[in-house]
């Protein structure tokens, strides 16, 4: 037993590792297809490290080293240091206010010379570990409100700093920690409330009000039909359904239009709608007191985001069933989709490999997530389980939001596609997240605290 433990490869979850490798390689291929031009000298640019795909290739090699290093570490290190690391992470985020570098309008980057570090990204790892550590403490009773509040505090402290750095998108990621907390006994009401509010908001943006009200009424009727026996026994359920229906209808039909018409300025409303690639349906209102130049500026920004989503939809939609073929995508080759190698990398896959390619990738991601859930559930220690669920939640949020925003189902918030998007910061974060899990899982026979 002892000799075996010394081997790096032993007792590791190879399914997870292979899924990781395949997705990362698909990402590399996609980045290559975005950047490659016919007249490029392939070998020269690979060796020159001038191109994004050659850089990404280097990052992958670094990831390999990083992963090996993590696997060689003792898993007790991760259970011993979370609090320290968490504090370190918070300090890093504070440091951005001093030495931060502005990229795309948010001062959330720390220049390290060879690369830029985004503490909000890395802090996800520390938060996950800290949450796991807190919940796995023997003295924590998660049924108590105090413990629930503390756990929430751990999760949402980084959000505060993130918002201060003007990184709304990344701040939202931390809300996914609700998922592991829910698994550990957090009351589901908060999860349901949060999720349904989010979904309602998004669908209100996406669909006309009238259709939504019909859909909501239909859902209410169908639910009460299925619950008719329970309702007979307890009338209160009907009241709950009715009030839920009334509330959501009010929200969709009155509150949202009211907010868009009277609370927001026109440019703000335009911009929110442009994030999902739609034109503002509530246009009939006066433009308020904003100065014309500022308005033009804001509208331009809205137009730009609108343009992004439209181009992204065109690229994916034109892929068809089997796609246009590798390096044959006219939209990708013509640089029509902005930020295609980072946030919109999925469009390149969609155009080149079509519905089949997209579905394949989606299944890979789903496989990754379900594998992590499977790993989580086979643990003896709460620490690893909570950590595993945290990893799953983070990856899930990133994948879902990123792909939804490329196909116009979610607003454009700068969130990367895990393992696919170009960029060291994002890639390293997910590598570390996943390989710590692999390392912890290798010791699943032990009860780690």
């Amino acid at each position: 037993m002892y000799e075996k433990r010394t081997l790096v490869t032993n007792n590791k979850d190879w399914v997870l590792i292979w899924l990781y490798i395949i997705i990362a390689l698909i990402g590399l291929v996609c980045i290559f297809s975005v950047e490659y031009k016919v007249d490029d000298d392939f070998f020269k640019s690979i060796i020159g490290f001038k191109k994004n795909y050659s850089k990404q290739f280097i990052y992958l090699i670094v990831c390999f080293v990083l992963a090996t290093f993590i696997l060689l570490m003792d898993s007790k290190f991760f259970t011993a240091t979370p609090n320290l690391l968490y504090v370190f992470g918070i300090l890093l985020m504070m440091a951005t206010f001093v030495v931060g570098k502005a990229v795309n309008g948010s001062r959330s980057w720390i220049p390290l010379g060879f690369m830029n570090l985004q503490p909000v990204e890395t802090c996800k790892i520390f938060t996950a570990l800290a949450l796991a550590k807190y919940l796995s403490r023997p003295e924590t009773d998660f049924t108590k409100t105090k413990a629930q509040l503390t756990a929430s505090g751990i999760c949402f402290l980084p959000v505060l700093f993130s918002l201060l750095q003007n990184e709304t998108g990344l701040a939202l990621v931390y809300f996914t920690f609700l998922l592991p907390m829910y698994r550990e006994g957090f009351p589901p009401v908060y999860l349901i409330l949060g999720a349904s509010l989010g979904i309602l908001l998004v669908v209100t943006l996406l669909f006309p009000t009238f259709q939504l009200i019909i859909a909501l009424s239909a859902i209410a009727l169908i639910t009460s039909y299925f619950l008719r026996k329970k309702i007979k026994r307890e009338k209160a359920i009907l009241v709950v359904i009715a009030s839920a229906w009334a509330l959501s209808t009010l929200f969709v039909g009155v509150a949202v239009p009211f907010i868009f018409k009277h609370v927001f300025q026109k440019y703000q409303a335009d911009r929110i709608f442009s994030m999902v690639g739609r034109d503002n349906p509530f246009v009939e209102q006066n433009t308020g007191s904003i100065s014309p130049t500022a308005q033009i500026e804001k509208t331009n920004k809205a137009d730009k985001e609108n343009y992004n989503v439209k181009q992204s939809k065109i690229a994916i939609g034109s892929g068809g069933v089997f796609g246009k073929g590798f390096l044959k995508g006219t939209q990708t080759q013509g640089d029509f989709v902005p930020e295609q190698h980072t946030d919109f990398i999925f469009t390149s896959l969609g155009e080149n490999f079509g519905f089949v390619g997209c579905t394949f990738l989606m299944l890979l991601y789903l496989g990754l997530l379900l594998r992590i859930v499977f790993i989580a559930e086979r643990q003896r220690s709460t620490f690893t389980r909570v950590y595993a669920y945290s990893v799953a939640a983070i990856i899930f949020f990133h994948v879902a939001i990123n792909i939804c925003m490329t196909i116009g189902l979610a607003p454009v918030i700068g969130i990367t596609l895990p393992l696919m998007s170009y960029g060291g910061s994002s890639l390293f974060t997910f590598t570390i997240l996943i390989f710590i899990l692999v390392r912890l899982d290798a010791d699943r026979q032990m009860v780690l605290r």
Partner: protein
Amino acid sequence: MPVYNESRKNIIRLIFIALFVIIIIRLFTLQVITSKYKILAEDQGMFRKVVYPDRGIIYDRKKNAILQNTNISDLMVTPNKLKGIDTMELCKILDIDTLQFKKKIIELIIKYGRSRPAVFEALLSEEKMAKLNESLYKFAPAFYLQERSVRSFPFDAAANVLGYTAEVDTNFLKKHPGEGYVAGDYAGMTGLERTYEKILMGQRGIEYWKRDNKNRLTERLEKGTYDTTAIAGQNLFTSIDIELQQLGEKLMQNKLGSIVAIDPRTGGILAMVSAPTYHPNYLTGSERRKRFSELFLNPALPLLNRTVSATYSPGSTFKTLQALIGLHESVITTDTRFSCSGAFYGCGSGRPMKCLDFGTFDLRNAITISDNTYFANVMQRVINNPKYPDIDSALTHWDQYMYGFGLGHRLGVDVPSEKTGNIPTPAYFNKVYGKGKWNFCNFRSVSIGQGEVDVTPLQVANEMAYIANKGWYYIPHVVDSIEGGDHFDLLNKYHKKIRPTFIPDSIFEAVHDGMQGVVDRGTGAGAKIKDIVICGKTGTVENYYRGVKQQNHSFFCGFAPRDNPRIAIMCVVENSGHFGGTYAAPIVGLMIEKYLKDSITDKARLDRLDQLTKLNLMPPRIFIELRKQDSMRHSKDSAYLFAKGYIKSIRDTVGIDEDQIDKEELEKAKKDKSDNDKPEKDTLIKQNAILLNDKKNNHLADSIKGKRQH
């Protein structure tokens, strides 16, 4: 670790799966069901680049290219590469100042963006080209030259026949849907360029290119697998004799009028001169727009092809046809004599039609000296022939002959904007005078080619071909054959011999005798050439412009040689004054000599040629109008002219829809008739020869009084 929470893992799994299913459904609708995005992607990511083939070349009968292509360059600029260029020097070459330069660049950036090449100056003149070629390396890569194929006329002649190409306008696009034209294309607007557009334009090629987000073309799609190559336009072989054409244009300098020469054996048009004309190369370069509007506004109407678009009373040239009808109807014989005692009294003594040469004449002599009385009598006998029940059927019968001779309808020549001319019909007189209320005397002047009869110069030349051939003709045409075959069956109708009524050769011989006499000893002696027997007929045509009597038109038509005629020709010199023999006959003589003898060498003849060339017969009203225009242009800008309706609208086509105008006139004539129902029954409608603007102001009630016909 509370155990009851374990079931929550399934809820989490469910959440994962549910969202992924939603995403996959959305992807399915985006990628598989909706086709909108594929179209959008093609629109912006692909570019159908149209490759323009060379237009077909047009040759004359001796295989000289008279219309071909040359390359002129456009100066192209890519604004974002402009840094570090010596603008001053470039501006000097292009003859603009730096302010204009900046303005132009900004315009281009707004229109096409910074990174797309755009035309800085189109169709550079040769001079600028030479200067630029030397120093272009200094302005590269922001500036470069792009060659473009442009039409060129090596002989700088036959502008009215060959026509010009111009950018298509929205009207054109509406009229030609589905023929592959897009805005910015060039198409033939007049002349052969228009008639044979389908053949000359060739087949366009299409190259599919990938396009990037800045609208730059990056590479061929699939390395050109879907491309189609451009096929050059087919060449046309015409019957035009370019030297004869040039001579004709030279002779008609400073005159209004036209010459049409036809090879009677084939119907091929040898020369088609409309004067004044313009230098066709004028309308190809960068100055095209400016020059076009100059030409368009010129009161002498250089853009009008008078040979087919102007109509005149045929005057005495009409008598040859009257003779044919008279003889064929047997109302006269060649020996029938009428005497002229000063006028034609067949319609009473009220308003006699004068004749000049007193005496008694048979048919041949009557043609030779162009006796009015004789032909008034002939037509009177035809119309009042007891063979026909009433005057309606008699005139209808007479009309049938005239239609057969090619008058009163479009011949179908392959030069566009042909007019019908006019042959008076019973229906017309019934409308004007009322049924049964008219007789021969109402239109007796028709008998000598005045009044209600109108012809185009082409019709007159064709009628000569008909007489020369003794009873048949081919529809006159310019294009003989198309290189590579006539795929649109455009030439079929020109290969059918047309023999309207069978008239025996003996009748034609008599008319030929008379016409030979015209040149040998009659009114057309000016056309005489040594060693060649010419048959001809003069005409002196009275005409009115805005109701004011103008100088007579001088007509001459004929054919030569008498045996085996090789050329049928007509010439009209508008408002020249004097008689048909004075100007038109010698012009025709020189043309025939040039064509039959291939050159004019005789000293005396060359002097005559020179003298005729220098002769200026431009009517004074043209100069007056030119002066008026000039002074207006000086005082006010063209906006003023537009406001005043002086310039109606400058369109790139000079097609005249004369049918509509005719109808208008008819309506007006009717009104006039009811308005002033005077006892003077021979109030006539006089169509003027030309002039678009005056069509509406046409004075409709010009009576013809004393006629002097020659």
